[in-house]
């Protein structure tokens, strides 16, 4: 990996130095003729590359994406069209440009035709830009001299029924891409040093597991827990499905290992009150006043059990409890076993207080029903559900075991049951879909299977971490399929029920997953960050401060300088924090801020190409 510029380039850059890294001149002809101090509006930056000393040599690669594109767009016609565009010296099509042979074709063409710009017209840059960029780098072409046109999402998929017009649009998109490609400049990715330590927020099973793993991978960990003791929600359970081991026995050993680990520092009770910095260099302040630096952060702050206020008589009727309350009752030792217990599933979830399925209530109810039956076989236990959501091997097996033990399951539908008190005894009324009639079940104890809900503190934490929450107010990961424990923000990871309801085994899996991911930058010691950040033209910056107040990532600050213009303020970009969103450049009153790789001239060239005939 070329890491020659390893000096943490971005962090200290300021003033005129801002643009320093744009100066790189490579053998690939990516010279930047635009003077660094020049305004982006200067005519020279709009000039086509043909006027430059090294002519543009653009290669165009058009992907069939199987039949995703090729089945609708006339790809050979687009290739033929592209080959006639100015500065295009090579155009070809590939069945899958992203497959090995497509990538080889790009590499071969770069050397064979001396390409200094590469354009791939295929799918979405979200998934494929890194791959093509890497391919260009491997062939010696700076990856920012690569241009991506999305012919699939932007064209073939949305114009499936109009192939002829889709082909015309594809040509236009390629033309626009070529127009921008001419103006692309090489960019360097700053390399940042990493503080080789991590912080884990939350001392439940997820946080404990993550902390222990990171420490065992060789990196110091700061574990921050808001309560005075470790263990979180799991430690408050009675026995844990599917192994039925005592919660204390399950959580105890890992809590002890964490407490005894020389590389784990416990901060307890404590919460994080301030966070600044970025991957590799987060500056943390705790409620205790302690401050430290870490390279990565794992969020494992857990969830709460819903308080079923106003539901099924909870809080009003005696002997209506939640599963968690039942666990505490059972954990406290033998209590008078009721004759008849009715459990109500989805109490508060799936359409009541929250819309989602909390995933764990079914196996929790089944576990508690089994425990009740095993201790007191004559107790009638009835689980009222709309659907039984036990999954995998172990929980499904427990469901069957509950059936064997005589736990009764009845499906209520479509309305949820109602609980009332009649002659001093609880009564549960519901429509039994299996029997196709309304039923009344007398009960001595009604147990509500309530969902997990996001913690209210998550809101503030998400702001501090600058990571998003989903619509259910649980933390939202970078990609639900392939990046389940990452946040979109580099260096911050998520695991456990803070992400959404799940079981303990999965919490630990996610925690270990987050520990693996969080330790990657620590193990590397350095990380490269995106080059697409904002740059400030300090000669024109008026120091108005709009960018500073508008930046969602707190990446811009106004700093005092004393130069030819006198004592003044100018905007400074912290590249470690800048996400390249472009908001600053679009609100800057005189275009003193521009976004690397998405400059106004580049975008205007595309617009012009789009409007141009032919």
């Amino acid at each position, binding site marked *: 990996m070329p890491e020659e510029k390893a000096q943490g380039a971005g962090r200290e850059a300021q003033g005129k130095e801002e643009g320093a890294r744009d100066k790189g001149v490579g053998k690939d002809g990516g010279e930047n003729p635009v003077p660094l101090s020049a305004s982006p509006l200067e005519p020279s930056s709009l000039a086509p590359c043909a006027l430059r000393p090294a002519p543009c040599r653009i290669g165009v690669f058009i992907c069939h994406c199987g039949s*995703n594109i090729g089945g609708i767009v006339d790809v050979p016609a687009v290739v033929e069209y592209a080959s006639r565009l100015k500065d295009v010296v090579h155009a070809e099509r590939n069945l899958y440009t992203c497959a*090995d042979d497509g990538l080889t074709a790009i590499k071969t063409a770069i050397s064979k035709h001396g390409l200094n710009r590469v354009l791939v017209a295929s799918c979405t840059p979200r998934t494929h830009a890194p791959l093509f960029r890497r391919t260009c780098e491997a062939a010696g072409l700076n990856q920012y001299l690569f241009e991506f046109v999305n012919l699939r999402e932007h064209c073939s998929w949305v114009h499936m029924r109009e192939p002829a017009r889709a082909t015309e649009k594809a040509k236009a998109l390629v033309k626009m891409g070529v127009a921008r490609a001419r103006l692309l400049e090489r960019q360097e990715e700053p390399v940042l040093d990493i503080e080789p330590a991590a912080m884990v927020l939350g001392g439940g099973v997820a946080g404990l597991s993550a902390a222990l793993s990171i420490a065992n991978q060789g990196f110091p960990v700061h574990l921050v827990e808001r309560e005075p003791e470790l263990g979180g929600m799991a430690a408050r359970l009675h026995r844990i499905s599917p192994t039925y081991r005592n919660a204390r026995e399950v959580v105890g050993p890992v809590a002890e290992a964490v407490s005894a680990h020389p590389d784990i520092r416990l901060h307890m009770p404590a919460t994080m009150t301030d966070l600044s910095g970025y991957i590799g260099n987060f500056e943390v302040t705790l409620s205790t006043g302690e401050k430290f630096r870490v390279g990565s952060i794992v969020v494992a702050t857990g969830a709460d059990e819903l308080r079923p206020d106003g539901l099924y008589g909870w809080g009003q009727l005696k002997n209506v409890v939640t599963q968690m309350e039942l666990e505490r009752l059972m954990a406290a030792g033998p209590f008078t076993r009721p004759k008849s217990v009715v459990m109500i599933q989805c109490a508060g979830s799936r359409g009541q207080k929250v819309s989602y399925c909390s995933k764990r209530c079914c196996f929790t109810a089944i576990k508690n029903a089994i425990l009740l039956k095993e201790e007191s076989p004559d107790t009638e236990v009835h689980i009222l559900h709309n*659907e039984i959501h036990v*999954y995998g091997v172990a929980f499904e097996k427990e469901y069957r075991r509950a059936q064997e033990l005589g736990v009764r399951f009845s499906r209520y539908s479509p309305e949820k049951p109602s609980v009332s008190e009649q002659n001093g005894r609880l009564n549960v009324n519901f429509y039994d879909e299996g029997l196709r009639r309304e039923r009344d079940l007398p009960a001595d104890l009604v147990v509500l299977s309530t969902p997990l809900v996001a913690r209210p503190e998550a809101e503030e934490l998400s702001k501090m971490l600058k990571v998003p929450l989903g619509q259910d107010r649980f933390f939202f990961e970078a990609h639900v399929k392939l*990046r389940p424990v990452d946040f979109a923000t580099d260096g911050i990871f998520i695991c456990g029920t803070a992400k959404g309801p799940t079981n303990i085994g*999965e919490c630990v899996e996610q925690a270990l997953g987050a520990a*693996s991911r969080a330790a990657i930058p620590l193990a590397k010691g350095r990380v490269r960050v995106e080059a697409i950040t904002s740059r400030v033209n300090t000669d024109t910056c008026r120091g108005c401060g709009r960018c500073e107040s508008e930046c969602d990532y707190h990446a811009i600050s106004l700093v005092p300088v004393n130069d030819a213009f006198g004592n003044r303020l100018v905007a400074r970009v912290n590249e470690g924090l800048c996400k390249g969103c472009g908001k600053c450049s679009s609100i800057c009153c005189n275009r003193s801020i521009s976004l690397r790789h998405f400059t106004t001239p580049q975008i205007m060239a595309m617009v012009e190409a789009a409007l141009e005939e032919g």
Partner: protein
Amino acid sequence: MKDVLVIGGGVAGIQAALDLAEKGVKVHLVERTPSIGGRMAQLDKTFPTMDCSICILAPKMADCADHPNIIMHTCSEVAGLQGEAGDFRATVLKHARHVDASKCTGCGKCAEVCRLKGRIPNEFDFGLRKRGAIYLPFLQAVPRVMNIDSKKCIFLTKGKCGEKQLCKEACERGAIDFDQKDETVTLDVGAVIVATGFDLFDPSGMFEYGYGRFQNVRTAMEYERLICASGPTGGHLEVEPTKEHPGSMAFIQCVGARDLRLSPFCCSVCCMYATKEAVLVKEHYPDTDCTIFNVDMRALGKGFEEFVERARDEYGVRFLRARPGQVTEDPATKRLTVWYEDPASGKVTSMEADMVVLATALVPGAGVAQLAKALGIELDESAFFKVRDPLMSPVESTRPGVFIAGYCETPKDIPESVAQASGAAARAFEVLKRKGGAAHA
């Protein structure tokens, strides 16, 4: 630091390999088939985001191929594991591809001339497409190297293939090598990660649904290939014998799964993928009626419940709470009738369907017992790899230093497999560090 052995090149194995490789660990990625990618490569789209499956996986596959720290061993199997955590010696049997990977570009000219071209059912498409004896498993295969099916190749089985070996003649790079032999290599590794995925239950034995007898009864995985733009029909669903797209479709859940006589467990993914598959039908053919038959709609994940609601309310997918008792076929028209107990009326009702898709159980791989023996690890009663403690040690096998990730441990979806794979990578890295004396137990 020692190397790590990852067994299985599906999404879990890929993730584990990448995590470790990024930390500077050299990873041996062993895959039984000629290409990495696993089951995810066969899917059309993924729920609930409707990402094109191969499109989001292909970059990761390419990352594996490109990564300087990852060494891929395809067509290979692990035959034994000696030693202990931190200091294992793994025996890997590398089957001959009969194609020199360093020379082959995967251009496919050899496949064009193979005498068996179009005669052998292609595994990747479940036989819905035919291949020759020399073939590329699928378009986006990694590595992009041709493979000779040594059990089918005329030359390899009979010692003679017509006048001359056409494939060898067609190859401009001299990549075909009939003399290539299976070889056994020994790898020194510090830790092992097992991520071998699952197999598919064959529903031919379930007479009630007529799979294998009725042409228009398909398994869900076959359907994934049929609806996929790069699949055998180019993404066009075709009903036999008319070849028209279906006007009505039924999806039957839990086929062979949650069945005490077959696989008692819940596969954890079928409710969601069936919903996705029905939505895909609706996207392709908005007028096609889609009904999903299931008993418990297990939408247990972030955004899943909402996805099901969208399928129902926006796309008009019908969800019926019933397991159909029987599928019958009109022998003349090949149209199907699905018989079920209507949850609303309580009466037996039938619906006509042009195509029925069976959500067949995803079951432990056929070779798990052998692999477990080779690795000295245990299986649970359902033949999934046993973990030391499903709660607090969910990635540790019964042998120290050997870790488990993905569906082969217990049924789970892609994100859980990916998270667990990273988790296994964390544990493997801990072992390497422990041996190096850098960390604490």
